[in-house]
């Protein structure tokens, strides 16, 4: 029964055209980035200089994985939060706006179960989105660049690293897997707002505002001591998998705090949804 109902939620989510609008923007961004690296003289030259400057063989490390990873970083930092907030904000509020929620709630399904099904569908969507992003990046970049080592420079995190062979692929996969945690958290944030009696756009805007406010406060020097408790401090835990030595304790810490955030968002959303009246 649960599987059937989850399948139904996935049909609804993946059947909508607007679900794909953001995905196509991701793929477009990746395509343009890869083409610029290939055909634009500037980016390729600069990347080559950076790799050589770090003391590595540029020929070996300018690979499909390196290019895909370089493009993934800005997408993970900026584009992914916007898009998953859009999808999460739609999940309940759009059904309420369209009137289909009233049809569903004339059925003997509890509101809590319905919300959990929707959230699970959102989590599956986030996973599929991030994995397909990685897959597309690696495959499309392979059409223009050879396979080889993985070189990553993270100026914001102040490190660079390189990986070879199977380890390069493992790290590339792990980064995507843990980027799903970021996607799920932001989807859950928008999902929480979507449970209130608001329009879908309002839910998305509220989630994005929360994200940016959190980012602004996090970056203020006066809040330095509180940084560990800000959501954005832990959202980018995937970047740890680009480090030569993975700081597992920090990964665990970030996962725990993000689990707490997710649970809080879900509880608030479920409570608000349980208490509200569903009217046409």
């Amino acid at each position: 029964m649960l599987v059937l109902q989850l399948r139904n939620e996935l049909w609804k989510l993946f059947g909508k055209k607007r679900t794909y609008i953001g995905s196509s923007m991701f793929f477009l961004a990746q395509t343009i980035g890869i083409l610029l690296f290939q055909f634009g003289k500037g980016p390729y030259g600069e990347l080559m200089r950076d790799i050589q400057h770090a003391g590595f063989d540029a020929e070996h490390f300018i690979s499909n994985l390196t290019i895909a990873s370089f493009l993934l970083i800005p997408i993970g930092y900026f584009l992914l939060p916007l898009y998953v907030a859009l999808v999460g904000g739609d999940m309940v509020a759009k059904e309420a706006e369209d009137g289909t929620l009233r049809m569903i709630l004339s059925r003997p399904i509890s509101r809590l179960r319905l919300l959990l099904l929707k959230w699970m569908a959102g989590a599956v969507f986030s996973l599929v989105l991030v994995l397909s992003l990685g897959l597309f990046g690696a495959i499309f970049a392979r059409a223009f660049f050879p396979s080889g080592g993985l070189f990553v420079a993270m100026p914001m995190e102040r490190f660079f690293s390189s990986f070879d062979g199977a380890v390069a692929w493992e790290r590339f996969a792990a980064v995507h897997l843990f980027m799903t945690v970021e996607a799920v958290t932001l989807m859950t944030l928008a999902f929480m707002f979507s449970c209130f009696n608001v329009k879908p756009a309002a839910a998305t805007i509220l989630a994005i505002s929360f994200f940016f406010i959190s980012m602004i406060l996090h970056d203020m020097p006066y809040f330095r001591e509180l940084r560990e408790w800000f959501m954005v401090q832990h959202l980018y835990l995937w970047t740890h998998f680009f480090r030569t030595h993975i700081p597992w304790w920090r990964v665990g810490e970030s996962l725990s705090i993000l689990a707490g955030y997710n649970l809080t968002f879900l509880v608030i959303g479920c409570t608000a949804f349980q208490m509200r009246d569903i009217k046409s």
Partner: protein
Amino acid sequence: MIRLENLWKNFGARTAVAELNLTVPAGEIFGLLGHNGAGKSTAIGMMLGQVWPTDGEVFVCGFNVATHRQRALQKVGAIFETPVFYDYLSGWRNLEILSHYTAPTSKGRIQEVIDWVGLTGREQSLVRTYSHGMRARLALAQALLPQPELVILDEPGDGLDPEGIHEMRQTILRLHREMGLTILLSSHLLNEVEQLCTRIAVMNQGRKVFEGPLASIREAQSWVRLRVNDFAAAVRLLRQDNLIADERDGCFVSLTADSKANQVVNRLVQHGIEIYEITPQQRDLEGFYLSLMKAEKSA
């Protein structure tokens, strides 16, 4: 089948439903009448557990909706004023999605219901290609899938053309006749209610102002159409003899409980009043409803 006990619903300072007591017996086609904003949809929302009552209790199929919603709605189907579906999916897929919220439903059962509502051949088309009438049939199909004992119809005739309304009416009668369903029909279309329902309740400004069998309305007060050469003189004469209780519109009189039409005729003829027509008039729902609303307004 449905029992509302002292039900109240406030939205902020506004009272949408006040002190509503209502019983819908099994096997009836029950009409819930009232103008827009009278509180019908809010009452239905409370029956389906979509709107939380401020006070009072709702029982559906013997279960309290607030505490045992799942069990209460297990054998309930509902259709709302504007049938809304996932337009980007097929009719079949919509039925699968909606029915699985109640229980796993076999393909055979879905096909059976599609055949029953007359959507065969179009079930795999996207809902966005459906006409309003086809959407109404799909709405009926989704309501019938859980093999309900009770069907709640909230303004089902809204937006339908005369042909569609006729079809909907016939379908409701078929549901009642062939499946023996209890039907709660909320509407402001008096003609529909009059043709379909056996019992009605009328709501006005959140309160129930009448509940009873439709037959009792027709029998409550009988009017006689009386066309004579001098209506005022005829009324004076008949009142003197205590043969009529009331008159209206310059051509209708209501007889007292003891009087008969032949007594009226004899009396008028004896006094030289020419009679052109005397016809008993059955009171219709519209007349009853309007007089009820008028009385409420003046009260």
